[in-house]
């Protein structure tokens, strides 16, 4: 489309301005602090130390690597499952059936629940004395006192399920909205060509949703990577650091331990990883290149 050059810039101006005022300086300051020893409770030690924080992180801190590996696992599992379940859910509630409006608002509703509340609810639900497993045990299913958050074998799935509860609707809503923009005649044409339901899904629905899927998975991956609250309140990163993600580790270092310099360095590491991942992901998925 022919463009007059000023138009797009005028349109993104408010966004640029907000970003310039409220985001550039804070992000730059994190970068600056990552080069400093900065512990608010020990101000006499503060000062510029170059890349010492990064050296310590890369070579002296096994927990950094451990948390990074767990972050990757968390993001992969969480986003993968949210996408698949969200897509299925979107397809289901896109069908016509009695009570669809009610069903839709119900399955979407966890998305409306805040982080504080989600963890609050699931702590009650998982609680071995007042939770759902205690109830099941009373009905003879499972053992009393089952604690999914206390058992190293179940703590990961239990946390994943909690985040799924709130995260699946995100994908479902987005994909459902996108499903609406598929012109009906595409399906009709495919039907005329004798394509079955599955073929139509593969050859019409999925390609149409591609950009939406690429975008939402990327955004969600970034979001899940930085998701601290849920794991922090649910498991505190335990038992024995098993569920510590990188941002959770950042929070423990920078907020709880006041080691702001090192926390900033860890944050910068996360920043670089996400940046690299995003570029790679957009390249590989050839985002926006569709005719």
């Amino acid at each position, binding site marked *: 489309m022919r463009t007059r050059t000023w138009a797009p810039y005028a349109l993104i101006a408010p966004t640029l301005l907000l970003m310039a005022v409220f985001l550039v300086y804070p992000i730059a300051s994190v970068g600056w602090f990552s080069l400093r020893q900065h512990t608010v409770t020990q101000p006499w030690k503060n000062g510029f130390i170059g890349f010492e924080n990064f050296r310590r992180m890369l070579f002296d801190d096994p927990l950094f690597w451990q948390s990074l590996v767990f972050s990757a696992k968390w993001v992969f599992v969480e986003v993968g499952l949210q996408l698949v379940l969200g897509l299925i859910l979107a397809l289901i509630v896109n069908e016509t059936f009695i009570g669809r409006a009610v069903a839709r608002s119900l399955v979407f509703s966890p998305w409306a629940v*805040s982080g504080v509340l989600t963890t609050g609810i699931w702590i009650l639900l998982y609680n071995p004395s007042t939770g759902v497993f205690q109830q099941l045990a009373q009905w003879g299913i499972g053992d009393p006192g089952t604690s999914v958050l206390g058992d190293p074998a179940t703590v990961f799935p239990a946390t994943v399920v909690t985040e799924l509860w709130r995260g699946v609707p995100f994908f479902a809503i987005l994909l459902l909205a996108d499903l609406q923009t598929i012109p009906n005649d595409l399906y009709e044409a495919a039907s005329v060509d004798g394509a079955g339901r599955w073929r139509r899904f593969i050859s019409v629905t999925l390609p149409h949703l591609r950009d939406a899927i690429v975008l939402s998975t990327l955004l969600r991956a970034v979001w899940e990577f930085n998701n601290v609250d849920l794991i922090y309140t649910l498991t505190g990163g335990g038992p024995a650091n098993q569920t510590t993600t990188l941002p959770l580790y950042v929070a423990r270092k920078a907020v709880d331990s006041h080691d702001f310099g090192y926390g900033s360095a860890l944050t910068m590491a996360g*920043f670089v990883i996400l940046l690299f991942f995003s570029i790679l992901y957009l390249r590989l998925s050839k985002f926006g290149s569709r005719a």
Partner: protein
Amino acid sequence: MTQTLTRPETIVPPPPAPPRRKKHRDPSRFFRLHLPLVLYLLFTLIPFYWMLVFALRPAGETALVPWPITFEHFDTVWNGIGFGLFFQNSLIIALGTLVTVTVFALMGGYALARFKFRGQRVFLLALLCTQFIPGAMMLIPLFVIFKSAGLLNSLTGLIIADTAFQLPLALILMSGFVRNVPVELEEAAMVDGCSRLRAFFAVTLPQLRPALVAVGSFAFIGAWNNFLFALMFASKQDKFTLPVGLSYALGEFNTDFGALAAGGVVAAVPVVLVFAVVQRFLVQGLSAGAVKG
């Protein structure tokens, strides 16, 4: 999967004039539709039920179906914690954020989708970059900015903060939606003599209704639930919001689960209801052919 006799309306909503709606029973529909839906509904609703039970049950009891129910927890959160005012603040902030985010995202998203301009990729990456750093790490510099701009302790300040943080995500999503609206429609309208702006309002915007609902509700919910900014950029009791009120239930030595659950009901029910109303706009019967060229 090898079925050949399928009805198109099982995948997409029926076109305006429903064709061949045959009333034949399709057993696969149960496994394809009803069973997974019921299972998923259970997964969604059990936690809500648990919350409701804790909100209505006297502390210390364990009955699965509490009777008689009590409203003492609601009394605690509404009168003891002052949820009324928090509710009002949250609503103002969330609505304000909804409007600013949606408008700016629509503008920016349109620019990203419809124009090729210098710095486009950098802009997209910059948008993403803003999401790479947890809010907690930016708190102090943000606080300083807000203080010097006189935005502490004000709902306007919180709307601006929430907008700044929600906008990048909303804009990216919106650009994807705009891209999905065939540009030919708009061009056709322009050929008919519409200005670009008129073409946008007349042709593209109506098609974006589901997108506006999705992006708008994300912004609303993000602001409605923001805890960190609400607590850190306000130091006045009458400027706090629902998430701050909720975290009051988690004390230093004691957790009031009843109050947490009752507060949760108060915080969640309105949003769920609003969702119930707007979700129908997520569906739009418009197909490309419906627009007269």
